[in-house]
């Protein structure tokens, strides 16, 4: 009995998890969720940068380049979120305005972090992954908004 129930229970749990983590209800919430994801990715990158610099795997100029990029992303993300909330408060309907705000966010971060060069091969690999994740999140915001329910 227990063995027969386990797959059903697992499937039910999987469906509940998938449902709870599915597309946000609307473009407004989708925008805010995307912004939160970027903030978290930046936080992770700062941790990696601190660890790599403190162990000598990142030079001063490499640290400055990474920190500068993360600072630009953070400033642009704060502006993005502020503009999203302002649009919502002003009664934005559909996804058009949110998509424009998202594009402005992407435009505010013109630097390609994948072009950064590092002396350490380990750092090259790690920061290509970590900063590449941020770039992917930025480029995916418009798609996230477009896919939101009620968009």
């Amino acid at each position: 009995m227990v063995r027969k129930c386990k797959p059903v229970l697992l499937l039910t749990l999987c469906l509940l998890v998938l449902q709870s983590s599915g597309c946000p209800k609307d473009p407004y919430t989708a925008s805010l969720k995307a912004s939160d994801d970027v903030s978290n990715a930046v936080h992770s990158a700062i941790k990696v940068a601190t660890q790599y610099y403190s162990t000598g795997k990142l030079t001063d100029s490499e640290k400055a380049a990474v920190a500068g990029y993360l600072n630009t992303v953070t400033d642009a993300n704060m502006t993005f979120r502020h503009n999203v909330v302002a649009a919502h408060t002003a009664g934005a309907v559909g996804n058009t305005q949110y998509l424009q705000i998202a594009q402005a966010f992407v435009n505010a971060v013109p630097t390609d972090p994948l072009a950064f060069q590092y002396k350490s091969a380990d750092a090259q690999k790690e920061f290509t992954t970590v900063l590449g994740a941020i770039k992917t999140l930025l480029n995916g915001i418009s798609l996230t908004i477009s896919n939101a329910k009620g968009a």
Partner: protein
Amino acid sequence: MDPVAAVNLALAVADEAINFIKGIKAQAGLTADQLVALADAQDLQNKDDIKALLAL
């Protein structure tokens, strides 16, 4: 305390706080207002952590 250790400690404390909120988020989901508050707090922390990283 040396600067690297101080920054690592600050990052660990911030991680704890964010993970606590994420735990609540995983259980109940967040409203738009809560998402804004969480992201605002994370970005302010990120700004401080970037300054600390540059000061190392």
